[in-house]
């Protein structure tokens, strides 16, 4: 295993993941992460020569018939938490 994961590491990761755990939660998450990754370092035994595999299937494009598909946007808009004139409203980003 690499160096121990600190509370600061978790804080940084939480920020990237758009989460804001409390100080107590950060301690717990760091402890859990260290215990879990310590066990998972078992995979260091895998020979480096093995080629990584992302998928069990060979990739192939799935093509649909070239026909117009009508969708009802009302159902989608129903989920928006804030909307105006059929558009989703989001908080300002800068």
């Amino acid at each position, binding site marked *: 295993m*690499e160096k121990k*994961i600190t509370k600061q*590491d*978790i804080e940084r*990761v*939480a*920020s*990237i*993941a*758009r*989460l*804001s*755990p409390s100080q107590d*939660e950060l301690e717990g*998450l760091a402890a*859990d*992460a260290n*215990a*879990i*990754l310590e*066990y*998972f*370092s*078992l*995979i*260091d*035994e*895998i*020979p*480096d020569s*093995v*080629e*990584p*595999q*992302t*998928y*069990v*299937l060979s*990739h*192939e*494009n*799935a*093509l*649909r*018939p070239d026909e117009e598909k009508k*969708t*009802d946007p*009302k*159902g*989608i808009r*129903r*989920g*928006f*938490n804030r909307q105006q004139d059929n558009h*989703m*409203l*989001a*908080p*300002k*980003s800068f």
Partner: protein
Amino acid sequence: MKTSKTLSTTNAIKSGGLTASANLEAKIARIEKYDSAVKAFIETYFDDARTAAKQVDAKIAAGKPVGKLAGLVVAVKNVLAVKDKKLTCASKMLENYVAPYDAAVIEKLQAEDAIIIGSLNCDEFACGSDNTKSAFFATVNPVSVFDEKGEIANFSTSEKYVPGGSSGASAAAVAAGFCDLALATDTGGSIRCPAAFCGVTGFKPTYGTVSRYGMADMSMSFEQIGPMAPDAYGCALLLSVISGKDYRDSTTAKTIAVASPAPDFGAAKNKIRIGVPKEYFEGANPAVAKAVKDAIGRFAEKSGCELVEISIPAVKFGIPAYYLLVYSEFASAMQKYDGLKYGAKPESNDELVPTVSKVRTANIGKECKRRIMLGTYITTKEHKDAWYTKALKARAYVRQQFDDALEKCEFIVGPTMPNLAWKIGEKAADPLQAYLEDVLTVPANLCGLPAGSVPCAKIGKLPVGLQVIGKRGADYETVSLMAQIESSLNGC
């Protein structure tokens, strides 16, 4: 094949001996009487179900052709979209979200005249092995509720066992007689584990067999939708309906639908070679290992199948490879839950990042947060090679050993779970211990292999599951072997 409960029900409905409405009302009566103890349903659709059942009865009365699932009552895990019904994923994040369309599997159920009765609880976003991680309530294993006849509820028991997970309520609903069949999903054992713990039959198809369109995904390269039923025939029948090509899910591009169970489904075949990996028994509870070994021995003796002891040392890499990749894929899949387009409503709308962080923190549960954080950590530039890439190599390594083993035999059998169902609340403190329970189920997901669980024994009142793993694409043959095993064990 032993007498199939599913086959008997479907024959009775199609022949007019039982109306779809009467079948449905019997299920509704059980739900109303007992679901307060089992806690399987998030939402019931009784009115819609009654309308659908009447339509099936009218078709049958008029002598019109009906679908393969005519009048069978099906309940669905609440990660599958049913139009105009809540799609919660058992999370506060989606507590009030209403699906705007039907999942591909729901369209297929309706086309075959199934009666959809409601949505079922699960671990939040399918992250868990015991249903205690639902944001709403913990489903109870029916073995804690019913007596041997399945009629007398014990509401006061202090010994409440988990139904397994993440599709615990799908298995519990089948075991409790709340539905004829259930739909569930399996990412690392989420169909097979609850099937084993609740004493029902469940099947995870080969990766790419069933369209995942309309499923809220947890981990895209592992997950499959699959059937749960009282018996292997029910699994085969439901699988034949939900499988097949769907242009909306590219993983099904080459898929041919699995055939309906033929008259010789579950019939004995001579000289099948069945591999029994020693690693599947080494870490298991000795009583579970013995029960499964005994069942395999009884089956081999009756069927004439050849048992071959095999070794798959890479089984030990399954848990780290699986969880590291699931963390990564889950962290990515969860990015869309930001409280803007849909989901929980932010309390404030000040600026984008703090608003999104607040709504995610308040509405995503502990285990999901842990997976998101670990997935984000191991896919950052500085840690990717040490964890993510290494896990992809481990996946290839495990797959190679399973493929090699399946060159020496047609099927692999062993226990579904290393232990019996535990009591609600146990294993809550240590996430790693909970993950280790998946050691025997995750390899099939890492390798994309079809795998199912059939009940093979009981220890006390707790059921034991026997797992059957087949070759990629041999879904029909795998469920057929499960039916053969069921028959030989005479209704465990």
